């Protein structure tokens, strides 16, 4: 299988801090991995090293066991069989759609090439668009053609560099689904670089969160969302409610917090003082009842499918967010009780620096 | 919008491919003699046609400025293809002579011309002479001055045209330095600068006098004949006046020829014959009639009307091809701010 193995990648521009600082990443063959991180964290540098446009200072990149970049080895971009889909597609403006898609098919005879182009256009749902020029396409269509062009030579790996950035939100979901389907259909291994956590979580089989040139966490979208490695990752992949707590006696998977006793996903090892991390949808507004956590609603934001209420809780410095499905029962200023459902994650009280941005 | 330009580029490239063919036509037969000519094609072109006939070989001519061609010949050294150098003035021949680029001429050729008009080393010879004259506008000048010393007088303030970068003007200044000394010459130059208007060349001076922009001009005589040929004497207001004998302003300059070292035996033989031809009565007559210059070879005289006899002119007391004195002159001209 054409799995991607990145080991110990280091890259620095000039004497300042390294952009990549020992990045490791493994993507199994056929998987779609999202590399997620704030801008400037090094994810695009990583992508350009994998594609062969940059040489790493240290570390290695291998696809299907073949070392592409490594100590003493550097395979030219054109011999890597790694396709890229850049931001905004970057179609060749002087070539028709068909000739764009056929661009990577050198050495293939004409009939085979035409058939391949047809197949690729069908795959991305744009059959019959071959004779158009790129500027006659909409943004989403351009993006899909860019994918078809990258997939046409049957690369071992496809890299997508924030490909949906330039699309407006209405188009984005549709194009995203099409791209996912096309990648699945060809079975190509793919890496999607993005700073949009929703995009990463909804599109990828595997999400790697990058911070300061390293992988902070890598796992399935569910893993990363529900069991974040640390509060920073939790905050980056979604809204987080962070409250300090005290773990119950050793071995028990519960902790006492200002929101009451909270069940933990795993019993904490180490000090008993720490942070308890919840998602806003794990909190529920209730009628204020004695013995339960209480607070005052200060703000309500309505999103259509749900709403978010900000609640100042007695005994907590910072207010907490509560996701409310359906109508919000309390107006701003009103009293409310709060209940916790599901399990929380436990983190030692040391908060890693929030650099990289 | 991009297509026409891209297409025209292709057309240019196509033209580039056929251009060597164009340039190549007519050069199938190798030339027996290659001449570098600092004299204009219009002046000597038909004479060279006659030379070609007389030598019975193809003669190739590269025209250019005398100074530029002499610099080129110096760079080429022994590798030159040229057998003969025709120069507009003696200085360029002197430069080649000084660097040992000229072959000695046969004594028979040298002897046809007075020593004053040939190289001291016997490696170049003058072919034709031109004399410095004063051009004037008859409506503005009743009696033109007989001496260049007149033109620095206050009455001519702002009325004298001259061409300080012209080689003939500069050799006239060199001649004046020899005749009258550096101090007198410097004083005279300052006077001229105060009185005069500088022009790029003799023709421009001539035209300025003709249009009345200036009243007098220091020029070579044959430019007047060139202007007559271009416009007709009736159309022309300007007239020329020959200076008194022994006046430094009436210096004779020469155009000459030298043979180059480095030519093979065959070309050298042609070159020698060519020098003989250029000093022959036929060629000398050509200079007299066509370019209205003075023939320099003994036995031929010009019969252009109004041209004073050659013997009556100021003979240069200097070696015209001597560069060191030329350099001193240049330094003096720069010093007074003329060039």
């Amino acid at each position, binding site marked *: 299988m054409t799995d991607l193995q990145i080991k110990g990648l280091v890259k620095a521009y000039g004497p300042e801090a390294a952009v990549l600082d020992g990045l490791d990443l493994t993507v199994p063959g056929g998987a779609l991995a999202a590399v997620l991180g704030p801008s400037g964290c090094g994810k695009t540098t990583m992508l350009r090293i994998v594609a062969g446009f940059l040489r790493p200072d240290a570390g290695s990149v291998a696809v299907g066991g073949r070392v592409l970049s490594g100590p003493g080895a550097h395979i030219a971009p*054109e011999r890597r069989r790694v396709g890229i889909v850049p931001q905004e597609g970057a179609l060749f403006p002087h070539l028709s759609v068909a000739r764009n898609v056929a661009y990577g098919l050198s050495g293939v005879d004409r009939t085979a090439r035409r058939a391949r182009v047809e197949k690729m256009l069908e795959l991305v749902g744009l059959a019959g668009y071959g004779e158009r020029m790129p500027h006659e396409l909409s943004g989403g269509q351009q993006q899909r053609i860019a994918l078809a062009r990258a997939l046409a030579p049957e690369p071992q790996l496809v890299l997508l560099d924030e490909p949906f950035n330039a699309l407006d939100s209405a188009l984005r979901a549709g194009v995203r689904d099409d791209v996912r389907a096309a990648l699945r259909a060809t079975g190509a291994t793919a890496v999607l670089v993005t700073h949009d956590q929703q995009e990463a979580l909804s599109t990828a089989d595997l999400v790697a969160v990058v911070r300061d040139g390293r992988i902070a966490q890598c796992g399935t979208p569910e893993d990363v969302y529900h069991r974040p490695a640390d509060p920073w990752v939790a905050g980056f992949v979604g809204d987080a409610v962070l409250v300090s707590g005290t773990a119950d006696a050793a071995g028990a998977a519960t902790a006492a917090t200002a929101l009451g006793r909270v069940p933990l996903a795993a019993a904490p090892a180490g000090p008993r003082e720490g942070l308890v991390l919840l998602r806003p949808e794990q909190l529920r507004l209730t009628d204020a009842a004695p013995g339960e956590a209480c607070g005052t609603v200060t703000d309500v934001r309505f999103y259509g499918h749900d709403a978010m209420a900000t609640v100042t809780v007695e005994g907590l410095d910072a207010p907490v967010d509560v996701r409310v499905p359906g109508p919000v029962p309390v107006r701003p200023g009103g009293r409310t009780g709060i209940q916790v459902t599901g399990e929380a994650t436990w983190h030692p009280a040391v908060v890693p620096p929030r650099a990289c941005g | 919008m991009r297509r026409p330009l891209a297409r025209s580029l292709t057309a240019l490239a196509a033209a580039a491919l056929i251009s060597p063919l164009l340039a190549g036509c007519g050069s199938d037969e190798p030339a027996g003699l290659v001449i570098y000519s600092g004299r204009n094609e219009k002046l000597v072109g038909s004479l060279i046609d006659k030379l070609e006939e007389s030598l019975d070989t193809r003669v190739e001519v590269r025209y250019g400025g005398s100074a530029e061609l002499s610099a080129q010949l110096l760079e080429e050294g022994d590798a030159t293809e040229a057998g003969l150098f025709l120069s507009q003035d003696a200085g360029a021949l002197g430069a080649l002579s000084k660097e040992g680029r000229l072959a000695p001429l046969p004594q028979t050729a040298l002897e046809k011309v007075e020593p004053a008009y040939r190289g001291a080393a016997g490696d170049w010879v003058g072919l034709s002479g031109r004399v410095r004259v004063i051009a004037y506008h008859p409506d503005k000048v009743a009696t033109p001055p007989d001496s260049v010393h007149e033109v620095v007088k206050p009455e001519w303030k702002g009325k004298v045209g001259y061409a300080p970068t012209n080689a003939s003007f500069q050799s006239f200044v060199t001649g004046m330095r020899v005749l009258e000394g550096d101090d007198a010459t410097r004083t005279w130059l300052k006077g001229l600068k105060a009185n005069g208007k500088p022009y790029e060349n003799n023709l421009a001076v001539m035209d300025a006098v003709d249009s009345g922009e200036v009243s007098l001009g220091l020029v070579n005589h044959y430019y007047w004949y060139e202007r007559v040929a271009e416009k007709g004497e009736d159309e022309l207001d300007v007239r020329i006046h020959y200076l008194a004998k022994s006046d430094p302003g009436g210096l004779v300059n020469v155009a000459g020829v030298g043979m180059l070292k480095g030519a093979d035996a065959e070309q050298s033989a042609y070159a020698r014959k060519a020098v003989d031809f250029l000093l022959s009565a036929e060629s000398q007559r050509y200079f007299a009639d066509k370019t209205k210059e003075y023939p320099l070879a003994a036995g031929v005289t010009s019969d252009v009307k109004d041209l004073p006899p050659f013997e009556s002119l100021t003979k240069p007391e200097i070696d015209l091809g001597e560069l060191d004195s030329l350099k001193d002159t240049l330094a003096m001209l720069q010093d007074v701010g003329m060039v």
Partner: protein
Amino acid sequence: MTDPTTGHSADRPAAAATPLAGRRRVAAGRRPSPVLLVPACAAALLAVLPLGYLAVRALERGPAYAWDVIADDRTALLLGHSLGLTAAVVLGCLVLGVSLAWLTVRTALPGARIWSVLVTLPLAVPSYVAAFTWLSAAPGLAGFTGSALTLTLVSFPYVYLPVAAALRRTDPAQEEVSRSLGHGRVRTFLRVTLPQLRPAAAGGGLLVALYVLSDFGAVSLMRYDTFTRGIYTSYRASFDRTPAAALSAVLVLMTVALVAAETRTRGRAGHARTGTGTARPAEPAPLGRLRLPALGWCGAVVALAVGFPLATLGYWLAVGNSATWDPGTLADTSLTTLGTAAAGAALTTLLALPVGVIAARHRGRGARLLEQAAYAGHALPGITVALALVFFAVRYARPLYQELPLLVCAYAVLFLPVAAAATRAAVLQAPPVLEDVARSLGRSPLAVLRTVTVPLAAPGVAAGAALTFVVCMKELPATLLLRPTGMDTLATRLWTETGAGSFAAAAPYAAALILLAAVPSYLLGRHRT
């Protein structure tokens, strides 16, 4: 309107590349591929050949002699004159070039399209013809005034062309934002538009400056003592190549300083504009009461720069007796001129291509050095470059000597920067991400150059070729020394006829030269980037 260089349609203005992306691509210190580097170094080597010759000649009598020449008071005087003239002409060209570009591109000037073609035609007028015609009409102009006037009138299109192209590319939305923030039309132009034109104007200004430094035709006729004239005086009056070489070396130093200064003005702006082009054309600004003065300004410039020389030539033709020119010779000479200039333009463009691509795509000392090397010989007078090629050719390339290929090489040395600047600007317009994509699709660097970079930059490269073609046609001093013996171009023919005082006979050649050079100039004027 859609921009063919980016493929983004007008209804998607939001799709702007982040400046970061552009910066990252060029700053990454990627080494140029050998496919580019080897020919670029070859081109640079050819361009610095004259420097080797200068070193040999300047030092042949020892460094002390060369230093004496350079340390002379007169050298300082010539230097002052040259720099003063250069400053005046560059300033004049900036005023003419920028004002005409703005009028023709951004305002509702009546007949803007025609004007945009007409104002490029002065390129076709050789400086010596312009100077000659002006001097014959107004001898009082001789000196600084006349030199500055004629040089400005023949060289302002070097500024006009890149500035007009840049104006077409600027995003009108930025100007609208400025207006909405309370800045008037003039303030907006000065604070938003003008800074964006700076790289284009500086590039054009550099070409003008180097042209003025190297020009001999206009200053010799106008009798203004510049550095180049000093070099010629050394050849012509004292027949001495050593001081000429020492002075030329100073000229090279001035060139390097100018090129370095221009590189500095480029800043990051030029590189950041690698993303999308103009989303839509700007609304032409109404001229209102300024309509007539604007028309008058354009008309006056065109009349002085093109109309006047042509009218003078017509006058000569009418009054002279020597007007017995042979149409056959004129036609042959024209064909030879076209062929030679085309060969010169083709070779120069070919050599400039790798240099321009590297200059656009790579930063760092090596790339800068390469570009500076290409410019090094550009301010040298033609005679010096020609003698340098004589020097090398008779020693190392005897069979080429005084054959067409050597003359074509001389054109390449002389005009490499003209083509390289155009190529660089054109490549900058093509987003580098396209080249990355092409390589990831399995194409070699050479194939990427051939299938992506060159086709995208083609219109700009072709414009550079057309410009080179025009300057090759007008070239005189190097052509005189290096042409195959017996070959005549329009410029050499013109030199012959005027040298003999046959102005009427010269007029047809001058007119043919101007008219033929006007064709590519016309194409340049119509060209839109």
